[in-house]
C-alpha cells in the first residue's frame, strides 16, 4: 500500500493506472505501430500502454503532442511549460503538474514562480510577463473557456508575436487533453506499489 499524492509537488510521482495496460506480448500490429515499437525500442511507459487501447488516436496524438510542446521556433520551451502548468493546476492534475513544473524550473531557473503557483493556485500573483501567460492558460482551460478581452492585446504589447501567442494557446489546449487522460485514468502514488 502506498500513499496517493494529493498536493501539488515538483517531485514526480509514480502513475498507477486504473485500466490494465496493453500487454506488449499480445499487442496487435496497429497497437505496436502506434507505440512506435521496434526491436531497438521496447521501453514504453504504462501510461502510453493504457492509451494503446485506442491505437488510432494514439498514432496521431503522439506526433501532435511533440510538435506542440517541442516544435522549433515560436514560443520558448519554458513558456510552453508554463502554459501546461496553468492547465494542469486548473484541472487538478497532480502528475502533470509535477512533470511540467519541474521542467519549467529546469528551463527558466525560476523556482519562485512555481512556489507562488503552488501556494496560491490559479490566483497566483506573478510578475507581469509570467502572469499574462499563466492567466491566459488558466482561463482557456475553463469549461467553457473564458478568455478576457484584452488578454491578447496585453501579450502583444509585451512583445509576443501572434505565432507565439498561438503556441501558448496550443500548449494550454494540449494539456486540457492530457490532464483529462492522466488525471482520470490513473492516480499519482508516492512510489510504485
Amino acid at each position, binding site marked *: 500500500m502506498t500513499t496517493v499524492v494529493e498536493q501539488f509537488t515538483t517531485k514526480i510521482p509514480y502513475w498507477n493506472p486504473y485500466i490494465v495496460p496493453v500487454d506488449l506480448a499480445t499487442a496487435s500490429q496497429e497497437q505496436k505501430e502506434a507505440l512506435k515499437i521496434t526491436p531497438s525500442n521496447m521501453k514504453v511507459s504504462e501510461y502510453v500502454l493504457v492509451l494503446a487501447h485506442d491505437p488510432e*488516436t494514439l498514432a496521431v496524438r503522439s506526433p501532435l503532442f511533440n510538435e506542440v510542446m517541442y516544435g522549433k521556433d*515560436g514560443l520558448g520551451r519554458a513558456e510552453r511549460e508554463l502554459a501546461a502548468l496553468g492547465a494542469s493546476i486548473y484541472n487538478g492534475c497532480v502528475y502533470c503538474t509535477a512533470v511540467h513544473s519541474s521542467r519549467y524550473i529546469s528551463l527558466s531557473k525560476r523556482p519562485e514562480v512555481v512556489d507562488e503557483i503552488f501556494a496560491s493556485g490559479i490566483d497566483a500573483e506573478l510578475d507581469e510577463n509570467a502572469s499574462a501567460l499563466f492567466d491566459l492558460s488558466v482561463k*482557456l482551460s475553463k469549461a467553457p473557456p473564458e478568455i478576457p478581452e484584452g488578454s491578447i492585446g496585453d501579450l502583444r504589447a509585451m512583445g509576443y508575436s501572434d505565432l507565439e501567442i498561438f503556441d501558448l*494557446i496550443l500548449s494550454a489546449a494540449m494539456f486540457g487533453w492530457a490532464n*483529462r487522460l492522466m*488525471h*482520470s485514468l490513473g492516480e499519482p502514488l508516492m512510489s510504485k506499489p
Partner: protein
Amino acid sequence: MQTISLETLIGRHDSVASDLFDKRREIIDLSDACLHAAIAPSDPGGISRGLRWALALRMARLHSIDELVDVLETSEPEHETSGILGSIAVGWEATGADVRTSAIVAHADMLANEPRSATKQCIVKLIEAGVEQADIVRLSEFVGVLSYYMRVVAGVKLLTGRA
C-alpha cells in the same frame, strides 16, 4: 461524415489566420486528424460513431463553439441515430437510455466540464455499467480531443479578432 478542419471552421479571413495556418501547417493537419480519429474512427469499438457524433455536438453546444455545432448539425450520421442520441446531442438528459449509455454520457459530461473531480470511483462506475476497459480509454481520448480542439478554435478566434 464530412471532414472537419480548423481551416474551414475558422476561415482564412485575414493575414493573421492565414499566417498561423501556414506556419503551423503540421499541427493544424495533425489536430484535424485527431478530431477525425475521435469522431469518425475506422474502429469505434464500443463507443459507436452515432454516440460520438451526439457527444461531440453536446460538448460543442455546452462550450458555445458555434462553428463546430453548425458543421456537426449538418453531418448527422445516416445510421445509428435515434431519439436518445438526439436528446444527448442537444444537451438534455439521456432519458430512456440504457444503463451503459447513461453512464457514458455522465462520464463524458464530468470529464468535459469538471475534470478535476475525476476519481477511481468514476472508472469503477463505468465498469459496473458494462463499459469495457478499452472503451473507457476510447471515451477519455474522445473527450480529450474535443476539449483540445474546441480550445484551439476559441483561441484562434480571439487571436484573429472574431471571438
